[in-house]
């Protein structure tokens, strides 16, 4: 089980329980930074499409660690800790751009796009005095380098030298879905950022949870966009670390079971005075209309009708996190399709008809678990206790049990 500074004992019921203490304890949070975020896990950093040319860079985070992603002159992508090797200042302070080299503002140490130290002002001193000692080796003072791999144009990084290659980590059932979405060049159409006053794990649970989707999100049910009575399922990969839940809009099942059951088809216009909001088109042959894929620990690949986005969560303390949405379309989108995506953006993000509800629900849990005794735990027995894929039923919490399986393995709990 490994060392465990928090002295937490996981309930005997296993992953059908999650102790509330892991949502608020600062010691556990600090341990997560080390064992999960700097541990044997892959973290989404950016899209390949956001680094279009030599010198392109983006800044992001792995856990609380600031990170720079660069593309060098040979086209290779590098992940670097955004912390100057001199005195620790951020080297890049903006969201991204293009630079030939990375120069720290504080004392202007400069680094090439691979992160190697290439310049120290006055390193020979001034007027023969001062300067760096002879023993100072540039080679020992580059930026801390991450291991970086891409899959389907998604760039991931890790601090671990031991974690399996990215494709293997994501797993075959999950990479198949990624190939489905990233089957042609994508183009970012905008970003959202949303601060949530709750522990990061509450959002990651929420994104995996098909049980809440059609209950909490009344917009889905009201406008028949997603219902448990639709065909769908959950997919489990890597012991549940990575999961997906998906549904197939009934509009594709005309004459099928859905109608025979006497249930109403997906009718876009019911109750909407501005029905153009829901104008949409079937982009994928498999008919899946809502698919939420979660890669442990903090990456979500989202399709809600024609809105496509990668969501990345960055923890900011035990009770706070920030959600970053990178919304994209395809390079070859027609103007009509692009307009459709922009209009459907009303469903997602911090002000989305569907996702508004997720903003507050984690906070309600965070506040609800305040003051609980050490033994109180969440209960996740929907669909039993197994962590297995299921086709048809989404009345299950197997995907959440999968999250906690990964969490326990890494935390030694």
């Amino acid at each position, binding site marked *: 089980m490994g060392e465990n500074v928090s002295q937490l004992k996981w309930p005997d019921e296993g992953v059908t329980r999650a102790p509330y203490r892991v949502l608020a304890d600062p010691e556990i949070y600090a341990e997560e930074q080390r064992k999960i975020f700097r541990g044997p896990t892959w973290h989404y950093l950016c899209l390949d499409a956001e680094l279009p040319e030599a010198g392109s860079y983006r800044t992001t985070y792995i856990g609380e660690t600031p990170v720079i992603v660069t593309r060098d002159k040979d086209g290779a992508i590098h992940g670097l800790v955004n912390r100057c090797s001199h005195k620790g200042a951020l080297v890049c302070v903006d969201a991204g751009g293009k630079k030939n080299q990375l120069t720290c503002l504080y004392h202007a140490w400069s680094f090439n796009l691979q992160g190697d130290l290439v310049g120290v002002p006055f390193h020979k001193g001034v007027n023969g005095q001062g300067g760096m000692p002879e023993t100072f080796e540039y080679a020992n003072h580059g930026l801390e380098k991450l291991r970086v791999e891409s899959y389907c144009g998604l760039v991931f990084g890790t601090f671990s030298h031991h974690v399996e290659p990215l494709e293997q980590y994501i797993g075959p059932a999950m990479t198949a879905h990624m190939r489905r979405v990233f089957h042609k060049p994508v183009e970012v159409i905008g*970003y959202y950022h*949303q601060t949530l006053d709750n522990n990061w794990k509450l959002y990651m649970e929420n994104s995996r949870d098909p049980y809440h989707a059609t209950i909490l999100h009344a917009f889905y049910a009201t406008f028949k966009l997603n219902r448990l009575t639709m065909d769908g399922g959950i997919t489990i990969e890597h012991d549940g670390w990575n999961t997906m839940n998906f549904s197939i809009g009934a509009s594709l099942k005309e004459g099928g079971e859905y109608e025979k059951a006497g249930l109403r088809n997906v009718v876009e216009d019911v109750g909407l*005075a*501005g029905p*153009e909001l829901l104008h949409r088109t079937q982009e994928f042959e498999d008919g899946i209309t809502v698919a939420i894929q979660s890669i442990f620990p903090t990456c979500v690949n989202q399709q809600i009708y024609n809105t496509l986005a990668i969501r990345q969560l960055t923890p900011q303390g035990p009770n706070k996190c920030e959600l970053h949405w990178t919304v994209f379309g395809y390079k070859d989108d027609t103007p009509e399709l692009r307009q459709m995506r*922009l209009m459907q953006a009303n469903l997602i993000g*911090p002000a989305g008809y569907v996702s*508004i*509800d997720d903003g507050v629900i984690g906070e309600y849990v965070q506040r609800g678990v305040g003051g609980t005794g050490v033994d109180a735990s969440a209960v996740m027995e929907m669909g039993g206790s197994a962590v297995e894929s299921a086709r048809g039923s989404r009345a299950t919490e197997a995907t959440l049990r999968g999250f906690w399986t990964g969490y326990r393995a890494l935390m030694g709990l």
Partner: protein
Amino acid sequence: MMNEAQRRLIDDLQARYIRAIDDDRIEDWPGLFTEQCLYRIITRENLDAGMLLPLMECRGQGMLADRITGLRKINVYEPHRYTHQQSGLVVESFDGTTAVCRSSYLVVRTMGNGAMSIFSTGVYLDKIELSATGAKFIERIVVQDSRTVGTLLVIPL
């Protein structure tokens, strides 16, 4: 050149916009817009990058009304109120019927439990139709300075 009466119509429209939201009379809000209006909330981050991804976008009064349906009947959120402050309103152009205006706004959000925060600041970019009967927004683009939204955005800014 705009006469004083026309300028007063603009000021009155701006004030009624704030009253509709801050006094929780949001049902009055769509009526301040023309039938074919555009209402968009967008972050400075997206706008400056030439990306039109909106936080919220309503084309036509129907979509304004749908946002009210959303916040009254569909969406889940902790009850809260806004207080707007608006300043620096400048009429940038006026062709006799359409005025282009720009002003700054600040919204303080007060939650049900008493927690207060500066929720959003930015600029209003307006196109306003002036007629003998009054003024209406043809377009209001809300450009939020911050790229980040705290928790959620459900009441229009």
